């Protein structure tokens, strides 16, 4: 059912209060997706979350705010490389002196935590400090997925979605890799995020208002849930040129494919009360009409 709610909404003067009220719904147990298209640091060009979006760029990762961008526990027992016994150390790597050291390592030479502890489909924030990389390429690795290649010394953050429960750590990504790593952190970033790894299938980011623009051919942002959301879900969007659109009674399984050009997006695993519908409408309008 399309309620087709229009724009005749009184926006409360305290703009932050609407987001706080939406956050309270999720905090109270509502499950779903919360995309705030204007939120700095939540939308990225690539699915690995390295480059923030800009007008005309693709959108490969949207960090959903449904769980407040909370980070889960640290998965790396020995983040500072002080304990070699904590690592499964591949060829041409050593763990010594508080560093992981690669000497002429090649692709497939990895330093990984011994036990598997990632969840397939979950997204993890990786932080890696590389004080020295004299040759070759490095990358963090989470649940068998390598992150963006690192080509020079520095501190790097990325968001990687696990494709297995094992193979977490870091590794060489080319022959002749020689360098040192000071620290590695891997923590789940909680939430039902929207992801697209295929470059051509990513929507574009546009502003005035901030929105994801899908081409109607092959663009889609995918979300995977740990369990089906059910048959009475609610999906709310602000569609430029139309206004707030709230769909009720939606059947959403363990995945949600977003293909509709819109600014903010809210998905809930249940029906809304009248008050909640008014809140969503006000919030979506506020976010969907930003300059």
């Amino acid at each position: 059912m399309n309620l087709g709610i229009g724009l005749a909404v009184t926006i409360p003067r305290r703009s932050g209060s609407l987001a706080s009220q939406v956050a309270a719904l999720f905090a109270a147990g509502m499950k779903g997706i919360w995309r705030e298209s204007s939120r700095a640091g939540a939308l990225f060009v690539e699915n690995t979350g390295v480059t923030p979006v800009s007008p005309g760029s693709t959108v490969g990762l949207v960090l959903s705010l449904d769980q407040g961008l909370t980070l889960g526990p640290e998965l790396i027992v020995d983040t500072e490389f002080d304990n070699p016994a904590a690592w499964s150390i591949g060829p041409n790597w050593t763990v010594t002196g508080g560093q992981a050291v690669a000497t002429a390592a090649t692709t497939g030479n990895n330093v990984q935590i011994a036990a598997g502890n990632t969840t397939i489909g979950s997204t993890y924030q990786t932080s890696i400090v590389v004080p020295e990389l004299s040759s070759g390429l490095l990358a963090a690795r989470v649940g068998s997925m390598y992150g963006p290649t690192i080509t020079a010394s520095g501190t790097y953050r990325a968001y990687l979605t696990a494709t297995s429960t094992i193979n977490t750590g870091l590794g060489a990504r080319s022959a002749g890799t020689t360098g040192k790593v000071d620290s590695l952190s891997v923590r789940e970033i909680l939430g039902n995020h929207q992801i697209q790894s295929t470059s051509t299938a990513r929507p574009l980011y546009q502003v005035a208002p901030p929105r994801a623009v899908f081409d109607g051919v092959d663009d889609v942002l995918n979300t995977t849930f740990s369990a089906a959301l059910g048959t009475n879900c609610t999906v709310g969007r602000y569609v430029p040129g139309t206004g707030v659109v709230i769909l009720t009674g939606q059947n959403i399984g363990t995945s949600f494919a977003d293909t509709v050009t819109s600014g903010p997006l809210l998905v809930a695993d249940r029906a809304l009360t009248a008050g909640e519908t008014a809140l969503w409408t006000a919030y979506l309008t506020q976010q969907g009409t930003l300059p």
Partner: protein
Amino acid sequence: MSYVHRTIVITAAKAARAADLCAQLAGPPGSGMFTTALNATGTGTATHYISAGMIEEQFAAVLSDPGVMQGACTSAGISITLAECTALLAAADISSEPPFVALARMGLMLKQETI
């Protein structure tokens, strides 16, 4: 990293090989291409497949010339002849047009999926 827009339409006969090559050459960003089916009527058997969107500039260069494609494949450890690269690009319509402009020009439409 620079991106450019490309609309790539390829014949159904070559789509699987093209998708495989894109995945091998571009890695995850090139995986999962050519899954949207096309034909002249919107129903029936797919005659073409499409991928449209932003790709890396260097990948666009690979798609612009059979020799460049073969060189990139060779560098990536993929065995392919120049003749096959030539045939693949001949079977593809690659443009910077918006997808529906390209489809109109080619007389193709999205194949409707059965719900």
